[in-house]
């Protein structure tokens, strides 16, 4: 798990991507995670708390162009004031050896709660994003990314 305060430069984001990719590369022999493994990770963080939908814009491609570097962009709807802001965002991949891909921490000073990175995906799978708000509320979003062998286009 990578914990990091979000800075707004692109260079930082790319550095993040490199680290996130490394996590997957270092663990090639582990068996693939699944829905339960992601649920277990989330339980470790938040116990049995309830999740709401909405607020999270999880932007991943429907079909990965390169499974080694799949772009993921998260954007959480929030005024980002001292009274109401996004505290942290976690991204999980159900089909990767280590389910936890990346975690971000935000402060009101960030101005907005959005981040981009690239992750390595071994196969078609769901990406899960959860956001923890300063008032304790939790949000969840899920998206499927197809990893294909490609070819044979019309």
């Amino acid at each position, binding site marked *: 798990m990578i914990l990091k305060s979000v800075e707004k430069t*692109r260079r930082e984001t*790319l550095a993040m991507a490199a680290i996130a990719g490394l996590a997957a590369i270092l663990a090639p022999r582990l068996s693939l995670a699944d829905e339960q493994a992601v649920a277990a990770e989330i339980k470790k963080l938040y116990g049995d708390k309830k999740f709401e939908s909405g607020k999270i814009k999880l932007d991943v*491609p*429907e*079909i*990965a*162009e*390169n499974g080694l*570097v799949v*772009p993921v962009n998260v954007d959480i709807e929030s005024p980002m004031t001292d009274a109401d802001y996004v505290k942290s965002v976690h991204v999980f991949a159900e089909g990767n050896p280590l389910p936890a891909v990346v975690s971000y921490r935000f402060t009101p000073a960030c101005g907005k709660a959005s981040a981009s990175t690239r992750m390595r995906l071994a196969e*078609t799978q769901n990406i899960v994003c959860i956001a923890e708000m300063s008032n304790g509320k939790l949000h969840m979003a899920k998206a499927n990314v*197809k990893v*294909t*062998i*490609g*070819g*044979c*286009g*019309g």
Partner: protein
Amino acid sequence: MISRRDFLQATAAASALTIGSGLGPLGRAAAQQRLTQADILRFDPLGTVTILYVADTHAQLMPLHFREPSVNLGVGEVKGMPPHLTDVEFRNYFKIAAGSADAFALTADDFVALAKNYGRMGGMDRVATLIGAVRAERGDDKVLLLDGGDSWQGSWTSLQTKAQDMVDVMSALKLDAMVGHWEFTYGAERVKQIADSAPFAFLAQNIRDNEWQEPVFEARKMFERGGATIAVIGQALPRTAVANPRWMFPNWEFGIREEDIQKQVDEARAAGASIVVLLSHNGFDVDRKLASRVKGLDVILTAHTHDAMPGLIKVGNTVLVATGSHGKFVSRLDIEVKDKKVADIRFKLMPVFSDAIKPDAAMTALVEKVRAPFAGDLAREIGKTDSLLYRRGNFNGTFDDLICNAMMSERDAEIVLSPGFRWGGTLIPGDAITWEQITNATAITYPNCYRNQMTGTQIKEVLEDVADNIFHPDPYFQGGGDMVRMGGMGYAIDISKPMGSRISEMTHLKSGKPIEASKTYTVSGWASINENTQGPPIWDVVAAHVAKVSTVKIEPNTAVKVTGS
């Protein structure tokens, strides 16, 4: 915007030109063997703007036969909807008489008999005549000419000249803008070189540098025609990096980028556009979904899936045009603008019947000039065919059977795979098979015919993956193209099942035994998207086979059992 009633009247009026009382002017003329250029061009003009649209010409400069599919299945919400209609269902939907010129141009059954009546279609000199006639009628200042892409690839001359023949021809047609897909298989550098120097715009809002997300091409161009401002937004095939070799454009990233299209539309409106057009290589089903989600598009000019439809399909306030492929059709859209908005649209899919249209002399000369250096090769007769050889169909085509047979014998393989490309001309029984015919079905920049070992499991994975690319119920997860063609192996497919469980009953045809998951088979194929694929170019493999058999005869293919449609 036009009401549903107006729209129906608009299409009815346009349709009346080709449909009439079931056997319209074209049909009657054809029945009397008097199909004329005037019949094809006849159009009740509307408003002050005309858009002419061609797509998927696949570098076909000369008239040819191209048989439309007899199997074109839709899944999910679009099951049984156009363009997923063939033969009698297609004719009933669009009110086309069996045996008519339109039936020949748009459907597949009775193709051989009708081909003898109606002759070839397309040819850039005929296309030039139609475009010239519309420009003369409307005035150059009212006409916009657009190309939906896949115009630079699909012939020996385009391959040998790295698309220069098509760039010269499209420039001579005074093309205003185009978008791309197969164009990118000439490599990033060549495409940028043409885009930067050609007299037409090369538009693609959805291609970005994959490091900095900067746009690679111009996203949109504004044109003034007939006193109206028209915004044209380009959309390249979103799946190019998956469907074709990514190593040829390693720094480019594609995708649908719906929100960015919306931004382009909004910016175009803010900049004064009265008409907003998406020039799209998404494929029809993707565009139909996109039209329901992006607001403010007046027209989507569709391409990629090679559908030809003699009527507009309307989604909300957006009309979709499907103009066919291989130069068989030129679409004409007349648009009336009132108060800076589209008030009415009238449409006709003009069929390019080569025998009925007087070739444009200047274009005939240009086509001859670009073909001259290769004329000897193109005309070289390798053999002849006793069978109808065609490409289109979701699961097989007889031209693909020929390619598979060639790989089986020339590469000594147990099982062969041939890509489900939708381009390549059709040959009718008795036709000579020339070098031009072979390369019209094979001319790509990654032609190597590989030979290697694959397990039964790996073969199944390929079939499942490709099937999902065609039959995923959500069009945004589809990539276009047809099912990979198999030689030496049969299988059953249930297209309604999810990925991983569509394919069953894989059978080795020669032995009649089931394909074993762990057993290794010698497999040959071509058009691999992997870099440094080894093997002879596929056109040499096919030519060697045709030369040996001399007269090609394709047996009916019953190796694929389809359910769930």
